[in-house]
């Protein structure tokens, strides 16, 4: 088991390296750098001015060197201009040659400086992740129990009226992406045309003061899309368990139906959904980006859209590291948890 986890960590590290390099490569293509120079410097810069601007800040070095600097295995780029301004990859506005450290990379714990938000990337990502974490927590609180309940209720009597209506419900939710259900919810519950006005159409205030009124719709929108899939998987697993031999034995012994479901079937039926829930995280991340844009909730997904829209290289890299980390860790947890939950695999 220890070796297995160690190997998985190795693969994880390799994946993260490859992915960050891809992001690094794509964000450092010349047209992207030109856009960065023009947004940071001056929109009306000539081609030569763009080139000098980029050259002064070390953007025109070979990609591998720049990647090494970002990682912190190569010393950062520095240059003192003729007028005495000190520039480089490790500098912050106002810093001098003495206050700048030689290496500044991820290995040194320095995530860089965001060119859009004019702040340390580390603090931005931390703050935005806090907001998104809060959102995700409530999404999981709403989504997981209701999905499991729907799945178990549908799967315990296959083909019954309850099964058919709950299955239809879960098919409809999987067919409704967040940007459709969010728009429909906003239209029904917040607009002045319909006039219900139960909820608020934006979650901007929810960052400081989350209430049911301004926070429920974003949570519901993300939860609904993920719910249908988990419910269908739970239903499939539950129907499989309900046809197993030991359930038939229990029925023949005269155990009541409620007892069979609660004591005999439920535990075995919940192994598969656990994996599914864990593997659902990458999709939740997607939903978070859409919903945060739709409801104007300034979290991780919102930061991703801002960073990508403005080619904020270091913020984008940090964001991709975090999301890749989330995806790979949830995969690892699902693998370990599966082994742990299923005694047949653990013992053999």
């Amino acid at each position, binding site marked *: 088991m220890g070796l297995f986890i160690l190997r998985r960590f190795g693969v994880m590290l390799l994946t993260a390296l490859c992915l960050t390099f891809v992001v690094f490569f794509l964000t450092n293509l010349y047209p992207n750098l030109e856009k960065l120079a023009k947004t940071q410097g001056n929109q009306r810069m000539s081609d030569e001015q763009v080139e000098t601007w980029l050259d002064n800040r070390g953007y025109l070095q070979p990609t591998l060197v720049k990647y090494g600097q970002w990682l912190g295995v190569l010393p950062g780029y520095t240059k003192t201009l003729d007028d005495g301004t000190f520039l480089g990859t490790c500098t912050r506005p106002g810093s001098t040659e003495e206050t700048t450290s030689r290496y500044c990379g991820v290995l040194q714990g320095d995530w860089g400086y965001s060119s859009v938000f004019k702040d340390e990337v580390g603090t931005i990502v931390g703050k935005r992740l806090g907001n998104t974490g809060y959102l995700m927590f409530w999404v999981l609180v709403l989504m997981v129990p209701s999905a499991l309940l729907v799945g178990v209720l549908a799967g315990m009597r296959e083909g*019954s009226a309850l099964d058919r209506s709950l299955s239809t419900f879960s*098919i409809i939710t999987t*067919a409704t992406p967040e940007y459709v259900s969010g728009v*429909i919810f906003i239209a029904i519950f*917040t*607009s002045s045309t319909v006039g219900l006005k139960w909820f608020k159409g934006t979650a901007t205030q929810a960052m400081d003061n989350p209430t049911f009124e301004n926070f429920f719709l974003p949570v519901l929108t993300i939860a609904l899309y993920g719910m249908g899939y988990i419910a269908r998987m739970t239903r499939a697993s539950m129907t499989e368990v309900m046809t197993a031999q030991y359930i038939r034995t229990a029925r023949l012994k005269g155990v009541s139906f409620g007892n069979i479901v609660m004591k005999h079937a439920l535990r075995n039926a919940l192994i598969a959904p656990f994996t599914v829930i864990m593997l659902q995280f*990458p999709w939740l991340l997607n939903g978070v980006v859409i919903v945060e844009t739709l409801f104007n909730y300034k979290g991780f997904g919102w930061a991703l859209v801002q960073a990508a829209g403005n080619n904020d290289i270091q913020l984008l890299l940090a964001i991709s590291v975090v999301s*890749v980390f989330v995806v790979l860790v949830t995969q690892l947890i699902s693998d370990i948890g599966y082994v742990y939950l299923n005694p047949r695999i653990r013992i053999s």
Partner: protein
Amino acid sequence: MEPLSWTGSIAILNPILMIALAALVVSIVVWIIGSIVLPEAPLSLNADGTLSSGTGLRGLTQSALRYSFFACVVLALAYIVLGILMGTSAGIVGAISQQFLPVWLSLIILFAMSIAFKRRLGLYGKLFDSPIGMIGFGLVMFWVFTGIFGALDLIITHDPLSQVSGMKNKVPGTPLQNPEDGEYAWYLLGGDNLARDVFSRMVKGAWIVVQIAPLATMFAFMVGITLGLPAGYYGGRLDTFLSFLANLILAFPVILLFYLLVTPEIVATGVPNYMAAVLFIFPILFIGVLLNSRYYTRPNFRTPLLIGVLGIALWLYLSLISTDGYIINTDDYGIWGLPTYLDLFDIPGGILVVFVSVVFVNSPTVFRIVRGLALDIKTRDYVAAAQTRGEGPWYIMLWEILPNARGPLIVDFCLRIGYTTILLGTLGFFGLGLPPESPDWGSTINEGRKLLSIYLHPALPPAFALLSLVLGLNLLADGLREESLKD
């Protein structure tokens, strides 16, 4: 011109529809509760040894459900038929159903032909045995026909890009201020914030989806199958390497990937053209290997066949990836492609990058499914038999394993078209790739959402259109799964 109301002179049907819908809801609730609370229908043993079951209270709830459902369907049909006959005097509903007349006709013909010959049509015919599958197929074909006839300018009432003065944000059914001769006199579903017709934009948006989604899914399947079969069949290092690559792409959050790939700056560097050149070669490889492995024992037949098929495929491939005589044309350098006079069609850079990135995102998942199926099927006896016969590995993969994996693959194909539709909508929603004035559903939803608290009508029609198409595809997949499990 008078503004149109929703139902016009057939408004007498509205209270009846309300009653029928209320009855449907009540009977569904009673049916569910009844299935839990009421006892099962009593069984009685007949003298000849057969069992017969009485109807009981449960049967009563079931028939109540059936009748109220039929009432709703009949009423909906009445709206459509009266609408076709009466046109605009039946209000917006009537006018829309009249505009959709070619779609209704094609649907009726398709369903009548399919049901008449369903026993001879294999799995497709069996679809018409399952009500769920039929509903799903109907929804999907509705949007397919809408897309096709919309592209032929049969359904739309106005040009989806032209703006008409005075129609900005007008509610559904508003008449045009000064309609010219022969111009449709109303905006059936209102105008958007640039005074364009919402109805025509929704119909045109269907064509974009119908064009891109199935084709992109097919390409993703070709890539996934060509790589997944050897990975599952050979295993070993090849498998480890390809699986690592697939997991690498899957670990990327889709939206981040889109934001990195689908920007004008990246299109300018030519990266999507390189990706297109790599990804689109897989179908050629697939077809080439497929035919060669089957016919290599008959060189006299194989060689001309391969030359013909691969020649056409290569021509299509080259005209697909080359634009204006270049395969890649950036400011710094260019790679020569097919000369313009041989180029069959040009794909604008925006569409190409959308297409490529959707294929790129979908193919690792297909790869994983195919690899799993190949791992499972290669242990079967018929594969061992083929190996003993001395068949080559590619023959076994493509002519023994692939046909036997078709059930799950067809089901996944339907689901994946739906997922691709969602992805296309996501791209439009973030304003990536397609031009901003494009009528695709994602862009329209994105534009409409900005004024959503005041004007509902620009955002809701494309939202419901996308919802119903994806729902149809999911139901179709469910029906296919059910029917393919039966044999």
